[in-house]
């Protein structure tokens, strides 16, 4: 069998697009948060909570649409909580972020017991139907790929592009970037940095949770324990590798997702390699890219620091 042909096929790409959604959305969220100066390790927990809230919302309402709304709300709440700790209480960002992750893991596992009485996975819930966009089907090459997908996939493309526009073309975006570089300077220009940070961090929670809801409502139609499986950390890496730019973050997420898709197809091919090694691929890539990208990249100057106006 032609290994390369299988790897670099349209099917692999289609799988990659499905895999990229949560990573890319969380990476864009990370771009907002970190551009405003708040390190967001909590993306992992935000994805997980979004996936859980999505499943719960869909389970009770019978509608995946309400599931997504529930996920967005849960993401916003988690984002606000994280904002409160990092911005108002001036907690260390990394510690608070790890806290968010542990909280999310424990909380979702426990609630799963309470709601469904089981530890491993939820029952099937109503998932999002795929939607067809006929015009896209006429595109050469990518037509098949883009014609029919979950609505969240299309939403992701829109979000990636409009987030880039928001950050780099609008007044709000300039203020977010200013705050992350030099909050004191932003303050002296009359910019409301507390609002800017709250907005950015909460938005990152919403976006990560939307990504999470895709896991439980778009990709699969149930929630399982620790469903995020490190995607939040990959998103964090993608955000850095993408230079805190939504477009770059998306491209980097695509790289991870594609490696993951390749890994899955390789496993399906019964090659003479231990499957554990193949499964490691995306994670090894994350480590390598982070090690390389961190050296070269230039994060927002005030990333991770605290600043309060009016002492």
């Amino acid at each position, binding site marked *: 069998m032609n290994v390369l042909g299988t790897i670099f096929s349209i099917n692999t790409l289609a799988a990659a697009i499905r895999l990229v959604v949560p990573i890319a959305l969380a990476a864009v969220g990370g771009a907002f948060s970190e551009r405003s100066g708040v390190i967001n390790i909590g993306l992992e927990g935000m994805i997980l909570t979004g996936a859980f809230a999505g499943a719960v919302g869909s389970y009770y309402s019978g509608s995946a649409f309400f599931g997504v709304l529930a996920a967005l709300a849960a993401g916003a709440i988690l984002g606000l909580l994280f904002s409160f700790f990092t911005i108002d209480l001036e907690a260390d960002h990394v510690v608070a972020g790890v806290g968010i992750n542990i909280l999310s893991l424990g909380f979702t596992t426990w609630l799963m017991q309470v709601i469904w009485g089981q530890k491993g996975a939820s029952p099937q819930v109503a998932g999002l139907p795929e939607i067809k966009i006929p015009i896209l089907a006429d595109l050469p090459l990518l037509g098949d790929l883009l014609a029919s997908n979950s609505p969240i996939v299309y939403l992701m493309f829109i979000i990636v592009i409009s987030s880039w526009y928001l950050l780099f073309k609008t007044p709000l975006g300039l203020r977010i*970037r*200013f705050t992350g570089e*030099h909050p004191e300077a932003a303050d*002296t220009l009359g910019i409301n940095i507390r609002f800017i940070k709250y907005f950015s961090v909460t938005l990152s929670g919403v976006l990560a949770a939307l990504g999470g809801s895709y896991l439980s409502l778009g990709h699969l139609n149930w929630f399982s324990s620790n469903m995020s499986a490190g995607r939040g950390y990959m998103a964090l890496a993608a955000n850095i590798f993408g230079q805190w730019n939504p477009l770059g973050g998306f491209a980097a997420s695509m790289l991870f997702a594609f490696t993951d898709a390749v890994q899955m197809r390789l496993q399906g091919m019964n090659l003479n390699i231990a499957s554990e090694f193949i499964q490691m691929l995306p994670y090894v890539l994350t480590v390598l890219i982070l090690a390389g990208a961190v050296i070269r990249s230039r994060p927002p100057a005030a990333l991770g620091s605290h600043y309060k106006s009016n002492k």
Partner: protein
Amino acid sequence: MTINAVEMKNISKSFGSVKANDSIDFSVKKGEIHCLLGENGAGKSTLVKILFGLYNKDQGQIKINNKPVKINNPAGAIKEKMGMIHQHFMLVDRFSIIENIIAGQEPTRTWGTSIDKKKAAVKVKEISQNFGFDLDPEALIENLSVGEQQRVEIMKALYREAEILILDEPTAVLTPQETEELFEIMESLKEDNKTIIFITHKLNETMEIADRITILRDGKKIGTVNKNDTTPQKLANMMVGREVLLDLEKSSKNPGKEIFSIKNLSYKNPVSGLELNEINISFKKGEIVGLAGVEGNGQLELEEIIAGLKAPDSGEILFNSQKITKVSTRERRNMGLAHIPSDRNKYGLVGNFSLAKNILLGSEWNPEFKNKFMIDFDYLNNYTDQILKEYDVRFSGKNSRASELSGGNQQKLIIGRELSRGAEFVLAAQPTRGVDIGAIEFIHRQLLKIREEDKAVFLISAELDELMSLSDRILVIYEGNIVARGKVEDFDQEELGLLMAGHSREER
């Protein structure tokens, strides 16, 4: 009735137990340049930060143009048409001039959703040309000189249509030329009927530019005077609270024989690329040699090479006719080298150590401080007390750590340690940087005393006053080259300033 652009009444502000402002009254007439004068820590920044809404006051009232106002944040101050140029620049290095100027008040198009870069550029260009600033609005801050960055700060205020400009120690970072240019800008702003509050602790600047002067000391207002009714000596006394000797008495004496010398020394800094080129300097007993230059022209490299912290690429160093080019720092110190480092927090002190341990630094191996194998703490403590007294180091408690001292007292601690070791050659780099007038006077007298004792001093400084009043000979360094040298009488301040900025002697 005259209009007071700013009137602050009975302003107080404490940080913990420190009363940074203590019932201060301060008023500024419309259209004047009002100088706020005081030593480090006197409360100048605190007062204007309250005015600009960066700090909350504990008590007091503020009026702008005779109208009572409440200013809770900088946005409120901007609304009252105030603009502030901060002691530490408030600029984002990697952003363009335009982005730094417009942030917070961006001109927009397409229903406010996107920034109108064209409109912004036009407005920024207009301000820039009005005041003769020659700046490309698209340039990144990190590619600008310090003086240019300051102009961007001024443009930020003007873009917001400020009528009252507050400049917090704007000259601290400037070369003498840049300071002159800033003063010209301030004069033209004054012609434009803007009100200027100018903060400094330098007397000559005050006398040059101010209309009126308010002096603060220890958080209290000492008084407000007209420039024309006062003298530098009176101002200094008000600032320090006692008689200060501004003019140092330097005896005329002939230098003795050479004690230390640098021959054909070259070095290339691998990081910055700066090159020291064939430096030759000879130091004689009983002589102070001053090295003038804008920071970053090779002084630091030269300092570190002399101290033995860096090895030169070529050339040699002689101490008492002995080659010490490859000799370790510790050995050099044993031979009689004292070093007052330019970066006192990096090389001079361990902030977390007690005063006594800081006094011990560099002498750990000295048998004098040892009691068999252990440090003789009784002896050390006595020795420390003596130095603290002799060098007038003021500290709060017996167990104070070095980091708890004020800048001036840290410096006196270092100087005490270094000069009490009986050195033959004193390398004093920026010995009075960030230090109050009172302490400056003290340090200067110590250096002159060393000279009286027939020891040699190498004074590296960016302060022209200091160089002119202490040195016997002056060298000027520019981009790693000694571009001029001579007796101190052969230079005047203006000429030194030009030489430091890279103009050659013939050009003039």
